[in-house]
C-alpha cells in the first residue's frame, strides 16, 4: 500500500514537473489537442443536428399513397389493406375514399373550381401508407404495381428521385464525419506522442539512471503516461466547454432563423463524457507510443 502511494506520488510529481519544465511545448500540445477535440465534438454535434433535421424530413418522406382503381371491390381493398397492416415494416395504413380525396384536394381553390366544372369526381381512392424506413418505399411501390386492384396508370405517388437523394445526403454526411474524426484522432495521437518525446528527451539522464539502478519499465513509463492523460484531460475540459457553449448559441441562432434544431440534452451529455474519456485515452495511448521507442533500447 505504502509502495503504491509512493509510486503514484512519484509519477504524479514527475508528470507535473515535466509539464512545467516544458511549459511551452506542453501548452502547445494541450492547445492543439483542444482544438482537435473541439473539431471532433463540433462536427459530431453538427452531424447530429443535421441528422435530426433530416430524420424529420425522412419521416415526412416515408409516406406512400397507393392509388386504387375505381372498379376495385371493397372486399379486395380491405383484404389488401389488412395484408399491409400486418407487414412489420409498416407503421400505419389508412383508407382514403374518393370523396375524402376530393375533399382534401378542394382545399386548394383552383382544384375546387376545376372539380366543380367537371361535375364528377376523377380522383381515385387510395391506401395511405406510413413506413418505418425510407429505403423500404421502393419495395412497396413495386408490390403496389403488381397488385390488380391498384390503378394501373398512376399506381403510387412514389418519387424515387427525391428519396434517393435524401438517402445519399444522410449517408455522405455520416461517412464524411467519421473519416474526419479518424483523421483528427490520428493527428492528436501524433501530437501527444511528440509532446511526450520532448519530455522524455529532457529527462534522458534520469531515465538512464533509473534503468541502471533497476527501476522497472512501468515505473519509468508511468510519469509520462500520466502527463499525457493530464494533457488530454485538460484539452477535453476546455474544448468540451467551448463545444457546449457553441452548440447552445447555434441552437438559439437556428431557432431565430428558419430551422428549429432541438437542444438534445442526452446527446450533449453523452458527447461531453465521450470527449473527456477520449481525450484521456488518446493522451495515454500517445504517451505510451512516445516512450516506447526509448524504453525498448
Amino acid at each position: 500500500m505504502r509502495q503504491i502511494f509512493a509510486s503514484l506520488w512519484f509519477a504524479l510529481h514527475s508528470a507535473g514537473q515535466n509539464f512545467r519544465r516544458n511549459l511551452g511545448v506542453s501548452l502547445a500540445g494541450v492547445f492543439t489537442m483542444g482544438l482537435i477535440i473541439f473539431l471532433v465534438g463540433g462536427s459530431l454535434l453538427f452531424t447530429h443536428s443535421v441528422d435530426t433535421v433530416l430524420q424529420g424530413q425522412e419521416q415526412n418522406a416515408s409516406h406512400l399513397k397507393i392509388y386504387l382503381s375505381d372498379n376495385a371491390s371493397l372486399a379486395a381493398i380491405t383484404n389488401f389493406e389488412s395484408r399491409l397492416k400486418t407487414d412489420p415494416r409498416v407503421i400505419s395504413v389508412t383508407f382514403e375514399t374518393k370523396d375524402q380525396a376530393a375533399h382534401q384536394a378542394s382545399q386548394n381553390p383552383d382544384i375546387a373550381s376545376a372539380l366543380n366544372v367537371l361535375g364528377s369526381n376523377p380522383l381515385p381512392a387510395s391506401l395511405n401508407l406510413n413506413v418505418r424506413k425510407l429505403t423500404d418505399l421502393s419495395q412497396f411501390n413495386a408490390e403496389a404495381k403488381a397488385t390488380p386492384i391498384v390503378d394501373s396508370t398512376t399506381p403510387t405517388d412514389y418519387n424515387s428521385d427525391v428519396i434517393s437523394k435524401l438517402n445519399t445526403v444522410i449517408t455522405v454526411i455520416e461517412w464524411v464525419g467519421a473519416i474526419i474524426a479518424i483523421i483528427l484522432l490520428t493527428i492528436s495521437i501524433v501530437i501527444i506522442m511528440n509532446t511526450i518525446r520532448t519530455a522524455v528527451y529532457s529527462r534522458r539522464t534520469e531515465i538512464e539512471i533509473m534503468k541502471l539502478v533497476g527501476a522497472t519499465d512501468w515505473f519509468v513509463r508511468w510519469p509520462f503516461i500520466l502527463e499525457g492523460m493530464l494533457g488530454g484531460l485538460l484539452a477535453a475540459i476546455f474544448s468540451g466547454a467551448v463545444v457546449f457553449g457553441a452548440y447552445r448559441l447555434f441552437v438559439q441562432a437556428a431557432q431565430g432563423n428558419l430551422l428549429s434544431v432541438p437542444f438534445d440534452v442526452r446527446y450533449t451529455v453523452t458527447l461531453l463524457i465521450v470527449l473527456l474519456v477520449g481525450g484521456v485515452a488518446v493522451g495515454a495511448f500517445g504517451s505510451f507510443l512516445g516512450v516506447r521507442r526509448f524504453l525498448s533500447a
Partner: protein
Amino acid sequence: MSVAVAERSSAPPQHALRPVISFHGVSKVYPNGTEALRDVDLAIHQGDFCFLVGPSGAGKSTLVRLLIRDEAPSTGRIFIDGQEVSRMSHRKLPKLRRKFGIVFQDYKLLTRRTVAQNVAFALQVTRPGQRHLREKVEEVLWIVGLEDKLDKFPDELSGGEQQRVAIARALVHRPRIFLADEPTGNLDPDTSWGIVQLLLQINHRGTTVLMATHNREVVDLVRRRVIAIDNGRVVRDEAEGSYLREGTATL
C-alpha cells in the same frame, strides 16, 4: 586532499566455490560490424577486486555493458550468481541490475537535485515507499565522506566529490557487485587515489569490485588482480598484476 575512510570491517573476503561472474566464450559484434570482444573466458569470485585494463577501444566498456545486459553478447554465455544473463528476458533485467552498483567517468548526477536527493533517487525508483530513507542515504554519504554536503547541489562540488556522490548512489541498495568504468578518468592523481581507496574499502566489506581504468599509477600501487584486454581479447590475467606486463612496455 584528505580522504574520509570509514572503519574497516574485519571480515575477510569470502571465496564461494561458484564464481559470482563468469564468461564462457563470449564475443560481441556490434551491428555496424565492430568486433568489440572475442572469445572471452573469465571467472570472478565473490569478494574479488579486479582491474580491467587495456588501450582505448579494447572492449572494457563493452564488457561492463554485457554484465548489466545493457547489451547482449553475440555468442557465448554470461552468468551472474549462477543466473544466465545472456538469455535473460527483458522483464527480469531490473532485478539483475539491482545486484550491481555502477559508476562512470561522467558521474551522471541529476543537477536539479541535491546530493542527498540524488542518492535517495536510486531507492525511490526501485523501492518506492522505502522506510528510513533519510538514514540510509546519510549512512552511505558518511561512508564516502560527504556527510557534511547533504544539501549541496552537484554544481557546488568538486569532481572527486561528485564521483563520491555517484558511488554513494551506487552503494545505497547494497549491491553485491560494484562496477566502475574509468571512475577516475576526469580526476587528478590525488583525488583518483582517494576514489580507489574508497573502492578498496567497499571491497573490504565483501563487495566484488570490477574497475576499468587507464590509470597506470593506481594499478601499479594497489597490486590486485589485473585483467588486460587488447583488441577484444583477454591477453593477461594476473592475481597481483601491474598495468603493463612485468619488465616490458606492452600489455
